[in-house]
Structures are given as structure tokens and as C-alpha cells.
């Protein structure tokens, strides 16, 4: 079997606050292969954000090994982690996290700039990414001139521009209305169809239903890992939604 892109083995993340020990991740093991569309679901405080931070190389585990594309990330320096974030990971955040002073094009170019590409190549790749999210004509606008859904598409373009191995989406629809959320999720699904590996972090069961595979986290432990429709809560959420739609 081919090597997993993301491999967590017995990951612990323990915070000590005074005398109490908080186990944000309590012995988590799973792996993600190329082309998967995984949703990590859990309530706030369940440990899903810690999980995302570790996958995203923004944080390091207290113990356990995390192999990203076969590389043990826990041994890397800050600069090496920065390189990995730049080349292997694409982030999509709940708050979009675009830089307000830069225009859309410059925002999308940021990861390419830090990679040290030539300006002409940065522009070409950024425009291509903006094309994919349908915002080529808005490239000279400032983020504040765009709607929430458009801003999130810009941040998707920024994540795509670097052609990362994994796209990490942290509550990508958290700040959007349900219609725009749907559009964004459909777009992520389409990206997955085209071969991109997507890891989605969410607390919303109906959003998680878009993914093919679901990992449910509770109190730092994995309580379910399997296909989306195999999770009882997701199944009931989807059913009740369909009933609602049918009633209308």
C-alpha cells in the first residue's frame, strides 16, 4: 500500500495549567492517504483544533510521531516547518485571514513569494488559481471590497496557488450563510474530485456530510473513524435535513 500523506501514531498533546493537566489529544492515531476527503468533527474543546494545528505544522505534539509524506515533522526546526507549511500545506481559515492592505492578487501571491519564485511566475500561478475560483476579474480589489463568500474563495485560491499536498480547511464555512456555505463545500468537493487531498475541520454535522470519511473526536480521543454515512449523528442530521426540505 502506498505511503500515507498524513500519519498520526499515538499523538498526545498535553497542556499544563497550574496543577491540572489538560489532554487536548489523548493518544490519537490515524492516517490520511492521497486523494481523501476527510472531515475531523467534534465539539469545541474536543481537540479537533489541536489536531488541525499539528497537521498544519503550526504546533508540535507533546509525544507521538507525526509523519507528513514520510517525514517526521517533530524533529524539524522552525524554518523547516515554515518550508513545509509553504510547500506541502494550504490553509483555509474560518476568518479567511486575508491581509487587508494587499489586493486579492498579492494575497494569493504571498505563499509563492515566500517560496522565492520569480515575480512573473508568482503572478501567473496566482492568476491561474484565481481563475479556478472564478475571481480573475477581481484581482485588483482589496479583500474588504468583496463579499464573505468571495473572500473565502480568495483564501481557497491562495491555498491552491502553492499546489499543496494537503488542503487544510478550518471551519471554512463558519462565517458564511448556508447558501454560500453550500457553494464553498461544493467547490471543495470538486477540488477533491480533481485529486486534491482535503482535511476539513468542523463542528457542523451537515458540513461534515460532504466529506467521504469522518473522524469524530471527543475529549482528545477518536470515537469514530469511517465513512461519513457510517456515523450515526451525521446520518440522522442528513435525514432530518432531507425531511425538512421535503416538508417545504
Amino acid at each position: 500500500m502506498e505511503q500515507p500523506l498524513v500519519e498520526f501514531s499515538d499523538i498526545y498533546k498535553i497542556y499544563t495549567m497550574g496543577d491540572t493537566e489538560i489532554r487536548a489529544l489523548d493518544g490519537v492515531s490515524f492516517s490520511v492517504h492521497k486523494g481523501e476527503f476527510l472531515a475531523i468533527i467534534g465539539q469545541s474543546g474536543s481537540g479537533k483544533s489541536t489536531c488541525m494545528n499539528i497537521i498544519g505544522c503550526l504546533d508540535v505534539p507533546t509525544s507521538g510521531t507525526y509523519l507528513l509524506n514520510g517525514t517526521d515533522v517533530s524533529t524539524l526546526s522552525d524554518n523547516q516547518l515554515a518550508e513545509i507549511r509553504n510547500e506541502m500545506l494550504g490553509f483555509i481559515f474560518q476568518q479567511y485571514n486575508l491581509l487587508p492592505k494587499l489586493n486579492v492578487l498579492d494575497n494569493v501571491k504571498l505563499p509563492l513569494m515566500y517560496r522565492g519564485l520569480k515575480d512573473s511566475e508568482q503572478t501567473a500561478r496566482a492568476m491561474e488559481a484565481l481563475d479556478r475560483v472564478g475571481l480573475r476579474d477581481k484581482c485588483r480589489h482589496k479583500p474588504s471590497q468583496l463579499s464573505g463568500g468571495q473572500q473565502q474563495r480568495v483564501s481557497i485560491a491562495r491555498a491552491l496557488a502553492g499546489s499543496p499536498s494537503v488542503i487544510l480547511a478550518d471551519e471554512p464555512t463558519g462565517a458564511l450563510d448556508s447558501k454560500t456555505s453550500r457553494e464553498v463545500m461544493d467547490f471543495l468537493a470538486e477540488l477533491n474530485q480533481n485529486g486534491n487531498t482535503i482535511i476539513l475541520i468542523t463542528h457542523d454535522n451537515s458540513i461534515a456530510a460532504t466529506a467521504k470519511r469522518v473522524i469524530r473526536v471527543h475529549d482528545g480521543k477518536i470515537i469514530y473513524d469511517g465513512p461519513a454515512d457510517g456515523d450515526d449523528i451525521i446520518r440522522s442530521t442528513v435525514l432530518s435535513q432531507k425531511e425538512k426540505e421535503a416538508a417545504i
Partner: protein
Amino acid sequence: MNIGKTLKLAISSILSNKMRSFLTMLGIIIGVAAVIILVSIMDGVTGQVTDTFESIGMNNLSVMVTSRGSTRAIEPEDMYALLDEHSDTFSYISPNVTLNAVIKAPTETDSDTGSVTGVDETYDEIKRLTVEQGRFLQYVDVSKMLKVCVIGTYYEQEYYGRGKALGETIRINGQPYTIVGVFEEQADSAENSSDQCLYIPYTNASKMSWNTTISSYTAYVTNTDDIDKATSIIKQKATELLGSSDNVTVIATKEILDEVSSITDTLKMALVCIAGISLLVGGIGIMNIMLVSVTERTREIGIRKSLGAKKKHIMSQFVFEAGTVSGLGGILGIVAGIIFSTVAGKLLGLSVVASPGAIVVAFSVSVAIGVIFGFLPAKNAANLNPIDALRFE
């Protein structure tokens, strides 16, 4: 990351907060302007002092013999012998007898008291004097003790009128002297200026002063580098003639000028150091505002780090920004410095030119201060933990 992009980023960040940026720059602006103004004014003062000394003559040595009551003296013949002996060091040596005399022109009813200087025929070369009408004293005037004189334009205008003095008579202590030359005007023919001068042969002056020994000489040293050598030659001669050089004072214009220059240079350094304190304070102001800026932009730093910015990228961004703030402050300070030093020069009546050296140094120092004081905030920014930075509201 290229420099153009970083610079553009820094400028847009400065422009987005104009008032704050200006106030931050103010310390640097004042510091740079102060350095330029002080250096320029000091240069102007030094220049004026130098000009004054140069007009006296940089190649000149004044020799004064103070052996009062001694039977032995340095005679003009001794000095002329010395001149022959060391013709490669000295160009000219002239005796110098100054006395106050009663001066009366035939056209006037009242007489004046003025200074009369007795010299030999080389004195115009020593002092670089230019005779405009007529001629200077000649060897025969001195040796035959002819009653001739050369006057400055003050006497010409005062007694005879422009161009009418040549060939006229002037009475010095009652004796009639024929005017054989008039000097070029140097200082608007004003009273007590260098234009109020009257030169006669030293032989006459010596006799007139009732003092047969000559106690003062002026020498012209061919090369200013030989001033020290010339001084020691004269002292040696004095020792030979008088038994010691204690009673002979040799003053070189150049030495006085060097002395004065070293004093003004020290003064200048002291003033620049004081102005430099303002630059230092300006630098601390920049550091302070950069620390605030880093805190305000924590989230931006988090975003950049999540996208793969390394420490050096964040560092260079903030250091560049601090350098740009101080550099812009430096440019504004230079403009202010040039304007104010010109105004100050006008007010003080000095020829003040903003010193290019001071401009270059002040600008480099201001940029360097920005970079140095921007370093700590930039380091703080670069060391931020990306998750904490991203969560920062």
C-alpha cells in the same frame, strides 16, 4: 522576497498611519537637521577664521626680539645673511618697524595720528599686497633712506580723492614724504581697515622711532610644510647671536590657524555629539512605535507564518520598515537642515553651505539607527508562535 516589494510594503504601512509615522520620524528629523545645521555653521565659522588667517598670510613667520636693554641685537644684516644661507626655505625676510606718527596731508588743516610701518622692498611679496597705482618701495628707497611712501586707499580717498594721490606729499611727523604708490582697495577704504595703511622704508621708520635696533621681522617661508624648519633656523640664529633663543618669539600664522582649527574641530564634535543625542532619542521613539506595531499586527504575522514565512522574512519586513521610517525622517531632516542652515548663515552673516559630509553621515546614521532600533521589535515579531499569532484578536 525582493527589496522593491519589501520597500513598497514598508511605505504603504507608513502611509496607512501618517500622523503616527510623522511623529515617530520627528525625533530623527530634528536630530538630522540639528547635526547638519551645527556642522554647517561651525564650518562657516572655521571658514571665516581661516580666510582671515589666510589674508594675513599662511606662509608668514613673525619674529619678535624682546631683548630689551641688551647690547646685542639681531640686525637686518643678520637676517639678510640668514635669507641668503637658507634661500631654499625662505623667500623673503623684511624688517618690520611699526610706530605711531602724526600724519598730515597738505590739503588738510588738522593732522591725524596713525600707524606707520617701516618695511623693506620685499614686503609687498611677503604680504601679497598689490599696488594699483605707482609702485612699491624699492631697494634704493630703503638704502638711500628716500622719503617715499606707499599708502592704502583710505588715505587716498580721505585726503586727495580717487586717483589723485600719486606724486602728492604727505607729512609724517612733520617730514614730507612723496607718495609713490597706492594699494589696491581691500575693504571699501574703511577707517581702521586694512586700507588704512602707510608704508615707508624701514630705515626711515627706525630712525623716526628713536630706536636704532630692529625688534621685529616678517619672513616668507616658501613652503608651508617648512614652517617648523624655518622656526628652528631662526631660533638657532638667535642663539648664535644672542646666546639664547629665550628672548626671541617666532609666531607662525599657520600654527595659530592649526590651533584655532583644532579648537573649532573639538567644539564641532561636541556640538555634533549633543545633536546626536537627539538622534538616539529618535531611535528609541522608532523602537517604541515598532513594538506597538508588532503587537497590532500579530495576526498579520500569524497569517504570514502560516503561509510559510520564515523568521528571516518577518525580520526583514520589520527591520526594513523601521529603516524606511528613519530613512524618510533622515531625508526630511536633511531638507530642514539645509533650509535652516542657509537661514542661519544669512542671519549670522556667515557663508554657510550645508556640509555634504554632514548630510551623508547624518543620513547613514539615521538609517542605521532605524535598523538597529528596529531589530528588537522585528525579532519579537519573528519569534511569535504562529498559532498564538493567528488566534490574536
